């Protein structure tokens, strides 16, 4: 499979990337690790006129302890997330989930910013962003703005990032010592989740679902049940409430709802919640 023709611009700074986006508007797509975008290019589901390659912006690859939160650069690869000592101590849910993305070759190239900005409801890391109540830092022509994870995923493969903007950093509240769990149901290790659930314990536990709607989705009914004192099994029954799973070759709607309940119960139990 061969992508349609496009022009290629390599950005050597975030400013250069923004300038290229300003010039080409929604005719352009950003290329980071390329492991979401290149498959779409090959299928010609994405046919941008211009690719702006930000894969070499090494100053956007970092994991920093910023006091009350962790700052993760958008170009940080899954490989670096899974091996990070900072994450192992303060946000093991993110390190563990990054280890479950794709396979080693994919994790060597794919980036957290690329995964989040792609907005695929079947991706693992968006659920972590929701469960941990992360904040996205988006840089555009007028400077930086921040968007809560709850307001970031706008639709199927759509996010709050506008055509002239760049996701530059993700800020995660620290969860040092808090329980967590990520449950992913797949037929083969490297597959996309048929259904997944991320649970982050803490003062206000967060629960988010993978592949249960056209966007990554918070399991608000489960969180509410936990807040009102429900046990894990009872709270997990609410997992499909508010979700809108789609049927596909792998799973019917009813099966996805069943998986969401079972996986949520397992995740809550593993996290000693409820």
């Amino acid at each position, binding site marked *: *499979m*061969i*992508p*349609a*023709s*496009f*022009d*290629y611009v*390599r950005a050597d700074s975030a400013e250069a990337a923004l300038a290229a986006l300003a010039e080409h508007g929604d005719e352009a797509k950003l*290329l980071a690790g*390329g*492991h979401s975008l*290149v*498959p779409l*290019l*090959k299928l010609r589901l994405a046919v941008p006129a211009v*690719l702006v*390659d930000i*894969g070499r912006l090494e100053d956007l690859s970092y994991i920093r302890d910023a006091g009350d939160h962790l700052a993760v650069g958008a170009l940080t690869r899954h*490989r670096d997330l899974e091996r990070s000592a900072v994450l192992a101590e303060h946000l093991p849910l993110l390190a563990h989930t990054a280890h479950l993305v*794709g*396979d*080693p*070759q*994919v994790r*060597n*190239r794919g980036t957290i910013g690329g995964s989040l900005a792609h907005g695929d409801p079947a991706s693992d890391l968006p659920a972590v962003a929701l469960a941990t109540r992360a904040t996205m830092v988006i840089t555009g022509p007028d400077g930086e703005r921040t968007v809560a994870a709850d307001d970031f995923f706008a639709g199927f493969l759509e996010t709050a990032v506008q055509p002239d903007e760049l996701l530059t950093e993700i800020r995660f509240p620290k969860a040092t010592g808090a329980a967590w769990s990520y449950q992913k149901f797949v037929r083969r*290790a*490297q597959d996309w989740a048929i259904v997944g659930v991320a649970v982050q314990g803490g003062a206000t536990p967060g629960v988010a679902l993978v592949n249960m709607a056209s966007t990554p989705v918070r399991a608000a009914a489960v969180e509410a049940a936990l807040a009102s004192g429900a046990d894990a099994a009872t709270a997990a029954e609410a997992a499909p409430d508010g979700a809108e799973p789609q049927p596909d070759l792998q799973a019917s709607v009813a099966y996805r709802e069943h998986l969401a309940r079972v996986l949520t119960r397992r995740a809550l139990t593993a996290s000693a919640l409820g």
Partner: protein
Amino acid sequence: MLITVTVNGTERTDEVEPRLLLVQYLRDVLGLTGTHIGCDTSSCGACTVLVDGEAAKSCTILAVQVDGGTVRTIEDLAGPDGALDVVQEGFRQEHGLQCGYCTPGMVMASTALLAETPHPTDDEIREALEGNLCRCTGYTSIVASVRWAAEHADGRSPGAGSADGPAS
């Protein structure tokens, strides 16, 4: 676009279309057909090569993305006299292949593993190869092949050359 890539220790400069995939560059432009196209959807790993020393699926990388970098393919492993390197020899000794289609990718992914983890456990071998599919062997003999290579490295680093250099 003009790109310069060090492939198997030799610097190559070629004019390529931006949409050219790395696997096509290796096979069609450079004639290095040891790297196979399997699923062409970044699932099967048959196209695995080392990019700057790390395993990567060359069907999901544009050639322009490796401009200025280094790529190693299966052709770089055997010595100039044709002697197999230790990973290749492991696959021969332990019957790690039947049809051989997945083998270049398996060997390159294993090479990346052993460069970083010279004495992996079986679980580590299986994890390192989770992005490589084989439809013949059922994987047991592939894991044994990698284990054989780890046990017979004898101070040799996997691959006849260094991660960034040519076979010597």
